[in-house]
Structure formats: C-alpha cells, structure tokens
C-alpha cells in the first residue's frame, strides 16, 4: 500500500481559521497522554496546568503580563511574515532594546521625572530598530538571507547583554552579582490594578496590537506587504518598492521587540539581568503563526502561549514536572498547526491496487 499526497482542488477557507483551534485541542490531548505516561492523574494535571494558574484575579493579571510581550512582538513579526520576510531575531532585538532602555534607567537612577519612562521606551525602540536594520541592510544590499543573519545576531545580542551586566552595568553595591541596580520608581511602569502586577506596559502592548491591526488590514502599505508576500512578481508588476517593504517588514519586528524588552525590565523585572526574556522572541513566532498573522488572532494566541508558560511553572511546582514541559507544549502546538495547515492544502490518499501496478 502506497501513500500519495496530492493537493486539494479547493482548500477549505473555514478550516484556515479553525486549524489553530484544532491544533490547540490536539496539543491538549497529547499533553494529557504525556502526563498519564509520566504517572500523573490527567484530570489533576489538567487542572494544575490550565486552570490553577488563572483561577484568581492575580493569576489573570499574570496571564496578561506574560502575554503582553508575546502579542506585541507577534504583531510586529506578522508584518514581516506577511511579506514573506522571516525575522527570527526578535529575541536579540528584545535584548538590545532592554540594554538601551536599561541604560537610560541606570544613568537617571538618581533623578525622578516623568520623561524617564518615555525616554526608555524610545531607547528600546531605537535599539530594536538598530539590531533589525543589520539583517535588513545585508538583505537589501547583498541579498543575504535574513533568517540566518537575524538568528545569529540573537546570540550576539544575548551575550552582549550578559557581558554588560557582568561588567560595566553591574550594580557596584550588588556584592558582585551579575545584575544592575534596581531601577528607581520613575523608571518602573505603574501597576494599574490593585492586587495584581498588571502594569501600564500591558496596555501599551494592547495598543500596539490595535496599531498593527490598522496598519496591516487598513493601510495601503499593509496591502503592499501582503501582495509582496502572496506574489512577489505581482508586487514588481505593480511597481511596489520591494526593498522598502523588506525594511518595513524587518524593522516592525525590531521596534516591537525592542519596546517589549523595555516593558519587561521596567515592568515585572525592574532591573537588568543577564537574561531578560524566557524566549519571548522565539515564542512570538509561534504566536504569530497560530494567530494566522492577524492581530486579533495574535492577541488570542498570545494568551494561549502565556498560559503554557504559567502552566509549565505551576506544573513544576505542583506536579513535579520537568521544566521542559512548557517547551514540549509549544512544540506540540506548532507541530499540530503546521500539520493541520498542510492537510488543509493537501490530502493523503492510499493508492488503489490498480495504480500500484505502475
């Protein structure tokens, strides 16, 4: 018996939007099977993983705090992904944003002023843009592959952050620990909801998603980006400036990642550490695709992804699960999504005996 893969004559449009839900459901089922194999009661594991983290107001606040960088970066990356420009460097762009924003916080540590936070965010945006403009420059001038360049720059940025925190930006009174001074209150985002850690940055991220929605779905530039992604020849035919679209596609990811970096250090962290992100820059790639590169979908998928982070922590504490569990769930989600998307466009047929005679 042979298996044959053939394109479907008419891929279902409804399934394109349902496939993330299907992928999430399959991820859940597989996860529960894994829990069972690990000797855990699946019902209590499910509760610990998916219910307990968000069964109070504080938990929901945590959910949004985790989702905030994911939705912001995911929206920025979606701009590039829609144009088939693959920025894999958000993690590094986030780190550079955090470095520049954190530097502002450190040098103004003794002063207080309303200008410090906006200046930090601006610095973070500049940092992200700078880091993303390296692959953009190399791609537009030398046609270098932006996937490789942006990916490798992640390691440079993360090591740069670690080096600075171990060296020049280390807190002189910090007993040699690799961390900066604690930021002054004027460099910390205000908490907005009593009894939670929900801070202003979450709302800035939500605003970013709305801006992304208008840009991608309502603006002419967003339209051009989509044309370039669907059919580059059509973009050339219409005379759209492809290089400009490359810059926009890469820098939008950079600017959102840079700002997200600042919102992290000025929000829940409150100082510069050798690591300021548990992989948000990578997870945001999954968020963008699970959200169908649509800001509304990205908002929802960022909440799901945030829940996986929280569930992973809760699972470690309550169920003695290994810390890899969050990564496993992320991987399952992406795997099922890619499989579902593949099966929307293709179908698998078992060859009949007659055809086998070939």
């Amino acid at each position, binding site marked *: 018996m042979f298996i044959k893969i053939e394109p479907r004559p008419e891929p279902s449009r409804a399934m394109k939007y349902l496939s993330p839900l299907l992928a999430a459901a399959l991820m859940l089922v597989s996860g529960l099977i894994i829990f069972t194999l690990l000797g855990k009661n699946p019902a209590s594991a499910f509760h610990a993983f998916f219910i307990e983290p968000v069964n109070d107001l504080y938990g929901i606040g945590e959910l949004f705090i985790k989702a905030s960088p994911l939705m912001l970066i995911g929206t920025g990356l979606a701009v590039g992904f829609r144009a088939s420009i693959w920025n894999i460097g958000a993690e590094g762009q986030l780190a550079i944003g955090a470095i520049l924003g954190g530097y502002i916080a450190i040098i103004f540590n003794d002063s207080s002023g309303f200008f410090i936070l906006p200046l930090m965010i601006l610095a973070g945006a500049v940092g992200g843009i700078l880091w993303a403009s390296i692959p953009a420059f190399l791609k537009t001038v030398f046609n270098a592959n932006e996937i490789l360049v942006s990916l490798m720059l992640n390691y440079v940025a993360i090591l740069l952050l670690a080096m600075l925190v171990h060296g020049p930006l280390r807190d002189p009174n910090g007993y040699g620990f690799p961390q900066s001074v604690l930021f002054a209150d004027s460099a910390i985002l205000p908490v907005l909801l009593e009894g939670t850690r929900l801070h202003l940055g979450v709302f800035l991220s939500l605003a970013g998603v709305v801006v992304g929605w208008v840009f991608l779905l*309502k*603006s*002419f530039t967003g*339209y051009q980006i989509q*044309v370039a992604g*669907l*059919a580059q*020849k059509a973009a050339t035919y*219409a005379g759209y400036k492809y290089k400009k679209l490359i810059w926009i596609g890469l820098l939008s990811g950079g600017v959102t990642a840079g700002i997200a970096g600042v919102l992290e250090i000025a929000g829940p962290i409150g100082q510069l550490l050798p690591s300021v992100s548990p992989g948000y820059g990578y997870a945001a790639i999954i968020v963008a695709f699970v959200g169908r590169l649509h800001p509304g979908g990205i908002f929802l998928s960022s909440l799901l992804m945030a829940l996986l982070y929280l569930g992973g922590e809760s699972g470690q504490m309550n169920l003695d699960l290994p810390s890899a569990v969050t990564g496993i769930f992320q991987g399952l989600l992406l795997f099922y999504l890619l499989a579902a998307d593949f099966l929307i466009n293709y179908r698998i047929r078992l060859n009949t005996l007659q055809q086998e005679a070939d």
Partner: protein
Amino acid sequence: MNTTPRLQLKGMTKIYPSVIANDSIDMTIAPGEIHAVLGENGAGKSTLMKAIYGVVKPDKGQILWNGEVVSIQNPAHARKLGIGMVFQHFSLFETLTVTENIALAMDDYKSLETLASRIKNVSEEYGLPLDPGRLVHSLSVGLRQRVEILRCLLQQPKLLIMDEPTSVLTPQAVRKMFETLRRLADEGCSILYISHKLDEIMELCHSATIIRGGRVTGYAIPANETASSLARMMIGKELPVCSHEKPKNLGSEYLGVSNLSKSSADQFGTNLKNISFSVHGGEILGIAGISGNGQQELLYALSGERPVEDNGAITICGDPVGHLNPDDRRNRGLGFVPEERLGRGAVPGMSLSDNAILTAHRHGMVKKGLLKFTKASDFAKKCIADFAVKCGSKDDPITSLSGGNIQKYITGREIQQAPKLLIVSQPTWGVDIGAANIIRQSMIDLRNNGSAVLVVSEELDELFEICDRLIVIAEGHVSPSVPVEETSKEEIGLWMSGMFPGGPAEAAVNESEQGQEYHVH
C-alpha cells in the same frame, strides 16, 4: 472503413471534484486517419488526450486499441502500445543536446552516437531537418517542437497525439508540418489533432469530433463543413466579430522606443538588439513573433519591471522613463496586461475587489495612507459588469475564476483606468471565443477614444483582426512597421523567421546552421 479501428473510445468519463471534464465521450479513429478534436479552452480536449496517453485515469469508459480493450496505466505503457504525444508545453532540458534529450525518453538505445545518426536519418526522412548535436537552449521554439515530434517518431508510433501544435509556428512552418503529418498518415499512422483553429482543421483533418463542456456535440467531415458551421458546434453560436473602423486622426506619440538594447536576465533568454518603434494615440500597433524571440524581455523593459540603463531609450507621452519603475510609469499614463495572469497580473489569494487595488489604487482608493475599500469595490463592480466577468461576487477569490474571466478582469482593471498607453501581452491566450471578442473590442474602443495600444501576440489572425500597424520581433530585432492593409500573413510569417530588411536572417545567411533553421520554401 473495413479495418479494425486503431483507437476506439466508449463512454469515456472523467470527473474532477468541481467539474465533469469528460462526459461519456465516444470516438473512433481508423488507421491512417487524421482526426481533429475541436473545442474551446476548457472543453475537455486535454483531459481526454491525457486519458488516452495514460496521464489521467478515466472514471468510466473503455479504450479499445486495435479492437482490444486496454487499460492504459501510464505514459510508458502508452508508448509501448505505440501511442506518442506532443504536448503543448515542452518538457526539454535546455542544457542538454537534442540527442541527450531524446535518449532520456527512450527505453532502449545502443549508444548516443547511433541514436544521433538515427535522429538525423528520421529527421531528414520526414522533412524535419535538425542537428542532433545542438543544445536545446539554442533552438527556436519551432525547432524544440521538432525535437518533441522526433522523440515520438523514433518510437514508430501507431497513433500520434498533437496538442495545439501550431501555436508556436510561422504560417510557413505550419504548412511544412502539415506535409509531415500527411506523410505519416499515408504510412498508416493515425493522428489525433487538437486545435481550436478552424481553418487548419478544415485543411488538414479527415474527420473531427467536436467537444463542448465535456460532451461531444457533433462529429463532422471538416471538408464538408464551413467555418461557421464548425464554430456553431464548438461554441453553440455564431462566431462573433469585432467592429473595427478605420483609425481616426493619429494623436501624438505616446510610446517611443529608440535604440533599446538590453541583455536578458535569463541565461537562455533573448537579448534585445537596438529596438526602435513608436505608438501614437489612436492606433493599435501589433508585435508579431514566435514566442521566445525577445517579447518577454521587451515587455519587462517597457513595463518598468526591469528598468533599462538608457533613460531616454523609452519615452511615455514624451517623458523619458527608462529608469522609472512601473508605478511611476503608470502615473504617466501606462496600463499593462502581462501574459502571466495569476501571480503577476493578479494576486492569488486575494478577492477581485482587493485585486482592483493592485494597480488602480491611484484612482482615489488611498487616502492618508489608508485604503478606501468602498472605492475599490465600486471599481471592481463596474469592471465585472462592463467586461462581463463571470463570478459570484466581487468578494470571490480571484483564483475561483476561469482563466478567461481572470483575463477579462485584469484587462478591464487596466482599461478602466483610462490609460493613455495600454500594453497587452497575449490578450486572448487560453481565452474562449466569447471572452476573446470582448477583450479585443475593448482594446479597439480604447484606441477609438484616442489612446495608444500595443499588442504582443503569437496569434497572427488576432493581430490582423485588431491592429492598424504591425511590426515583427525575431531574435531580439524588430522589423520596420507596416500597415496591416499593405501586408499579408505570408509576408509577416517570413518576417517572423527573421527575414526582414535588417533582420537577423539576413546577417546569418552564410551560416549553414542558421540557414537550415530559416530554410523556407
């Protein structure tokens, strides 16, 4: 005929998920018969031929080969039975020689040398001279077709299927191919000849099966029919004609090309050599030529998709535009319909309405950087109505339309922007007769309103029907222009093989290889 039929089809049916491509088709071909399969694009001709050649499996029906029921498994099986097929689109490797390409399709040959001498013998025997040592990329399209035909002939077929073979040939070459086909038929080889060109079928074929919408609508002896009676069977109504009055006053020069030279971006493309011509308001200029002679490169240069170094080599409405990109050229009055519809002229995955924005955005669809979707859908609705685009609604994905309707929509989108200069490439390629008529008429109407129209086409009939003047492109050179009334298809056909004043054939007359290629009786 008293002999067993060479091939007999009984109730052949092929159902695709969205369409019944063949609906119980019966057909009989005797040995030595040249049998036409006549039908419009999308009528189901190709599906039927692929079923005979073993490329697709019929869902129902029988194939009788020399009186015996056979189930043809795949093309190799078909070849073993003695069925050869020359496809509309060639499958040759450009970097290999003729011999090597043919060897790839042969199951048994002793050595490349013996195969080469066999190719030479067979090719001369059938009046299709061809040097077996030449690399395929150096061959013209007509010669490439010869390779495909020879590939079949070497297997001594009992049935040869030819899918729209004349679309790549000059009128003179068509006549030569007919001689070859008649000879093959005299030797007992049956020929299935697929075409929608009525005059060819009346000249060549002994009998015809006419297909419309997947069903047989008639069997005919072409010699006893008229073009209009065949057309009625093929499209169900009379052949429509365009109304084409004499041009009124010529306007000013809207497109000027002077001494345009450009080397091709494609390794096996054609370099443009010192091209000059102009198009004025109120006229339609046609560019004839066999495909692959520089049309692609010329159109890329004119549209701005590949700008040229010499800014003054191309002018639109008097402005030098050689450096400008397509967007800036459109702002100066250019409209352009490329021959690739999906993926270049239109964006697959977008609706009709969104596809209007692609080039028509400059007509009030963008305000402060944001799109005005109501303007776009109004534009799309008007385009659908004026150009009789068959679709569900303006929000349908463009990929749900047939090729002809996509072409009508793209042409409509460009014409509705009232361009001063409209460039159209292969306006009616793969378009059914009704749609072709709408497209041709709309280009004539645009000319009558004072715009300049440039049409690049391989269909001489079409060019003679709509154009005021013609030029010919051959190997990257263009001929002087000639008014349509003062020339004939024969003369243009000669020019298409490079034989025009200052053309490439004059320069190459001493080269034996070239002389062979351009050898014309």
